[in-house]
């Protein structure tokens, strides 16, 4: 099983939850390893849980809430709004750049 190499970026303050680093390069499995969807290609939902388990350093409730991404976070797949790409069902490809941005309110 070959790993997928992804570039992950956090912005708008989310980087504070991930070791205060904006850019992370991660290798994730290309297929799901357990559960009733074992063997299926990995998708964005998988990545979100993988990041929570493997990269998140503090206050997980500010990233995932009720098993889904917290409101107020926008996800970009290769600079495109993830809603145009299938949201959580988007199948990850090697080399993808995924960005998580928290909406800002200040001015």
């Amino acid at each position, binding site marked *: 099983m070959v790993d997928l190499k992804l570039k992950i970026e956090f*912005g*708008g*303050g989310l980087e504070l939850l991930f070791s205060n680093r*904006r850019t992370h390069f991660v290798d994730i499995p290309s297929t799901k390893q357990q559960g009733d969807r074992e063997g299926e290609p990995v998708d964005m939902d998988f990545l979100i849980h993988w990041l929570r388990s493997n990269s998140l350093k503090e206050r997980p*409730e*500010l990233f995932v*809430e009720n098993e889904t991404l*917290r*409101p*107020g976070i*926008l996800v*970009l797949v290769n*600079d*495109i*709004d993830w*809603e*145009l790409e299938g949201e959580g069902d988007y199948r990850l490809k090697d080399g993808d750049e995924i*960005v998580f*941005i*928290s*909406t*800002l*309110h*200040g*001015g």
Partner: protein
Amino acid sequence: MAADTFRLDDYKRYGRQMILDGIGLPGQLKLQQAAVVVVGAGGLGCPALQYLAAAGVGRIGIIDHDVVELSNLQRQTLHTESRLGQPKAESAACALTQINSRVRVDALANALTPANARALLEPYDVILDCTDNAATRYLLSDAAVLLGKPLVSGAAQRFDGQLCTYNLGPEGPCYRCLFPRPAASPAAAASCEETGILGVVTGVIGSLQALEAIKLVVGLHDEQPSLLVYGALSAPPFRSVKLRKRRVSCPGCGTEGQKAGEIEETDYVRFCGGARPDWEALGL
């Protein structure tokens, strides 16, 4: 303002932009006939206002109920030491008049509220969201949808900024399309007071807001909804994102499913899960 009120010295004042392809005299007249309202005369509002006035936007509204404090002067460059304590709307109006006395400035030292939003915003063609809290951002989005006006939204915190024009053309998303629910915790929606701001980040984003508004007024905007994300310490510093179209099930602008309800009857503060802004202190 009709073409025949265009004065000879206006050619001199606006000449540098009137010779541009896509502006010319017709574009300058559109600017003179336009009405733009800036909600918030703070870090984002100050640069936006100064460039709207300098470019010759005929009527400019400024809505802000705060007064100028010393902690504002680090970034809110229309305000001065001598105007500390004055309402920001009036201080900003004073600065604009010094730059361009021919612009009509409406200084509205009111808080924007669900009760007055529709009436206050209705006279303007373009709305700039230069506010600093989630509740007012949702209120502005709903009001822009209701009134059918584009909403040029800027935001800035720490070293980061965001820019997006909502409700753009017939298909552009509103703020609720992108963020159906506000951030869960009040802490995550912290203001500049709590998280800090490098002042000039608001200068970059506020200037870009004025630019979007000018493009909309003169007809140079491509009307493709996109989000610009800025990180002063990131490389590359700017990232442009292609956005979804309007969401048919959006409670703000959609045509199907649950609607958000009348603005006047919506409790935006509770929706945003906190006590900011303090509508009660604002007289509600």
